[in-house]
């Protein structure tokens, strides 16, 4: 279900799929700022409705992530496990800067393969269900 209308420079879409995985997609060439990261996180929390869920973040083609945004990613949220999905070496650098600079509050990894990313999230869902 689509619950939020994308705005310029903000996330493109934020949904929960049939498996209960949050899917956050950033638009092509986006510069993720502190406020846009904050807006995305607040929406994630609202969507999850007091439950912690795994989250797939599609960040391929992200242009850059501001330092303030990276600090937001270090905060605890409704996400129980995060897979950062990219394609290029640039995505990998950005993702790892995000992971390295912030102390991430839940297991977070970078993937270039969507299936492997979903597999990582599903493992987590099983763990939290057990």
């Amino acid at each position: 279900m689509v619950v939020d209308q994308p705005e310029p420079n903000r996330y493109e879409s934020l949904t929960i799929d049939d498996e209960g995985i949050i899917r956050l997609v950033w638009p092509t060439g986006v510069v993720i700022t502190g406020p846009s990261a904050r807006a995305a996180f607040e929406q994630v929390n609202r969507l999850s409705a007091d439950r912690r869920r795994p989250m797939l973040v599609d960040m391929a083609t992200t242009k850059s992530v501001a330092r303030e945004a990276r600090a937001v990613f270090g905060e605890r949220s409704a996400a129980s496990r995060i897979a950062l999905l990219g394609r290029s070496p640039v995505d990998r650098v950005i993702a790892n800067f995000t992971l390295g600079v912030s102390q991430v509050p839940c297991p977070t990894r970078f993937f270039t393969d969507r299936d492997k990313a979903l597999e990582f999230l599903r493992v987590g869902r099983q763990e939290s269900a057990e």
Partner: protein
Amino acid sequence: MSEPPAEDGRLDQLVDQIVQLAAGDLSVRLEASPARDSVDAVITGFNLLADELDMMYRTLEQRVAERTAELDQAKRELERLALYDPLTGLANRSLLADRMSQAVARAERGAGPPSVLLLDLDEFKTINDGLGHSVGDLLLVEIARRLTAVVRDTDTVARLGGDEFAILLPDIDEDQALRIAERALTELQKPFAVGERAVWPAASIGICFGTRGQAADLLLRDADTAMYAAKAGGKGTAQVFRPEMHHAARARLQIASELGSAIEQNQLRLLYQPIVDLRSGAPVGAEALIRWQHPTRGLLLPAEFIGVAEGSGHMVDIGHWVLRTAIAELEQWPDRPARESFKVHVNLLPVEVRWPGLAELVADALRAHGVPAAQLVLEISETGLMTGDIGDLEALLALRRLGSGIAIDDFGTGYSSISYLRRLPIDSVKVDQSLIADITTDPTQVRFVGAILQLIEAAGLAAVVEGIESVEQMQRLAELGCRYGQGFLFGRPVPWSTIMSSLLGPTRPTVS
């Protein structure tokens, strides 16, 4: 991912970015290409590293700025503590010394020499002890305010400690300095309100006019000497320093150092002045008076050393010596008259009354010499009693419980009322000689003294009039109903042995 072609300009741009970063320009960033290949990843990495570095620098600079501000604040606070008096906010001795050196240096470069005023409050200890330290502190703050109000912007008012203040007047002529001293005296003579009471914090001021080339510390020393001269010459006055004042200051120091050994070397003496019954002429007692048989200066009167003794901390020892000696001398007593018909009066200073073991000391001495307590009367001056606190009253009550008498001395020189006296544990009043000086020539004074004697009698107290020098004075006092008297008419102070022999055969003036 394929290797970038050699002609790819992005690597050169990256090298330029690194050079600029190395030069300290942390704002330089490169745009990654749409290819988002490994070279773009390196570019993105450098951009992010530059961000981090920039942020770390900013954070560091901000912290340095904060710490510097804290250090500056701490330094100012330390400076304030080191250079200013915390109670009054005035300069302290260190800052004064610094400003004096500056003023002296400016005088050497052509400015006028500085003058220094040194002020010491005349009755601060009395106020502090009598009304409490918090009142004393308020008084000091008020004095600081008044002094600051009378000086120029360029002058420095300092508190040197206790109740001592100094004012540095740089580049000033003598007339201006005197005017400031006068204004300070006037300001300090105005009353200071403490609740519903008022106290008068009068000060003595020493003034030293500087001369070109005079060392700063000598200015302060000379002002101090002048201040002592002002105190000695009458309180609430100012004195300009004169070189001969040093002799007096040296003499005081000499006395203070010699007093320390005066007791050990048996140089103190007690003389006794008789107190007589004006109707019969019979001696009823004697007042013990201290003298110092100085090895080179001869017999010294109390006025020449008691002030120094009080200031140098010898007073309690001397007071104890007087008590022990007077009681010891009382041990010798003839068969007649009965002991209780003759009392020995001993003076106590407020500092002795406040000494905690006074009653025990008296009791021990009386017991050791077999002297009944009733044969001893302790005299405390009206001013001393008025400025005392409850502790003094307790001490007097303890002496009364022993059985000794308590007399108020120099009555008429202070401001106590008869109703106040009635509440005190005393049994006699010694009327000051100043009240009877004109009694033979001034009818108003006769009525005045008569009224005082009646009030004393009405309060249930016995009156002894001091300073009787003529038969006329004695007769007038007897007519007014005065029972007891003391003065040269009845005898000058004499050794105890003389008193003893006179007890055996009195030949004294009586009221005819």
